[in-house]
């Protein structure tokens, strides 16, 4: 039986989904569209097209996960809401659980220890294909 997972906002999806990237970016403070795109490009290496970015902003605002703040109406900053923080936290918990599971199955900790001690793993072990 699969392990019971937390209930993230279902439409947010995977870590590289625009909604998750935007929430992650806004978790550090309010930003307008251009600043968001640049920040996401910097920390995730993902370039969101303007249509994709504002499509995701529209969906997030509709669901109350982000909100516009007062300011320049042409470069309106957005901030993450309490619901948005909860949704992002749930997604991050799930991603961490998967990352931990993956690391355990790949024995990445063993690999890291071996790298420190200079121990040679078995041929082919841990190599990316």
């Amino acid at each position, binding site marked *: 039986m699969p392990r019971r997972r937390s209930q993230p906002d279902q439409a947010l999806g995977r870590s590289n989904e625009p909604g998750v990237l935007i929430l992650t970016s806004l978790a550090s403070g309010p930003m307008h*569209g251009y600043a968001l*795109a640049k920040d996401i490009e910097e920390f995730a290496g993902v370039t969101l*097209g*303007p*249509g994709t970015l504002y*499509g995701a902003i*529209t969906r997030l605002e*509709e669901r109350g996960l982000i909100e516009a703040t007062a300011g320049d*109406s*042409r470069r309106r900053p957005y901030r993450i809401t309490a619901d948005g923080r909860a949704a992002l936290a749930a997604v991050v918990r799930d991603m961490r659980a998967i990352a931990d599971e993956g690391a355990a199955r790949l024995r990445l900790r063993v690999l890291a220890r071996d790298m420190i001690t200079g121990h040679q793993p078995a041929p082919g072990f841990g190599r990316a294909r």
Partner: protein
Amino acid sequence: MKGHSRFERSLRWYPMDWRNRYGDELVALLEDTYGDRPLPLRCRLSLVRAGAGEWLSGSGAEPDRDGRRQQVRSGSLLVLCAWSVFVVAGAGFAKFAEHWDAVTPPTDRRLPAAAFGAVQGAALAGAVLVLVGAAVSLPAFVRSMRQGGWATIRLPVLRAVAVTSVTVLLTIGLVAWAHHLGPQQRQGALWPYAGAGAFWALAVVASIATCSAAAVAATRYLHLPLRVLRLEGTLAVMATVAMVAILAGTLVWWGALAASAPWFFGSGVVGSSASPVPPAMILCGSLMALALIAAVLGAGRVARSLTRVSAD
């Protein structure tokens, strides 16, 4: 700014509600990102795709209960307009496809016959759905007329009545004329008759267009009870499904005939060669495809708002 108007043109793919809410911000983002440089093709495609997505989702400023009702209504009317275009394209297709079975080998008739039958069945179903839609909104229309609504729709209704009357008179005259002509003359040998036929076809198109415009004008301001509005929305979605079936049937019929009896698209002489993509079919198919896109947009808006209207 030099590129400002160019960036604003990029918003034309988005619905008005969305533009009102996010348009300035998106233009500012494009200005900040691209400055005076031209928009890359990838960016343009991103905007087209995202704009179409907003039309489908009907988003923008979150509408209130009346706004959602309005979206069901406007989506249904968009489907009605698409249906009108389908009627024109379908009439053209029906005329073009006349006697197709006469030149098709009996062993190859099964698939095109099934497709043609599906087109006819879906067209009949669509017509019934439109008539039911008109019938259920009739009481609200009568109430509106009693309360002085005639003034708002007088012009489009009178225009539709005038154009339709001329079309009916033309039809009677053309039929009477045709009775005095031989088969060759009716098939285009007599150019005045062919010219009158073309003029009659234009009159039919104008009649359908003006009647649709009158129906839109009449329905736009009607106070429809929630129950009726829900039914209209459901009928609009069903009519869209009928349009999908019509277009699919038309394409299957076209493909099957192109494979088994391509001479039908040319001289009609069995065994002769002909292009399987005649201009008439391209025109009819393109009209149907464009109308279907509009219908899907309308049905998408209806479907999205219908559930929320029901929850109000």
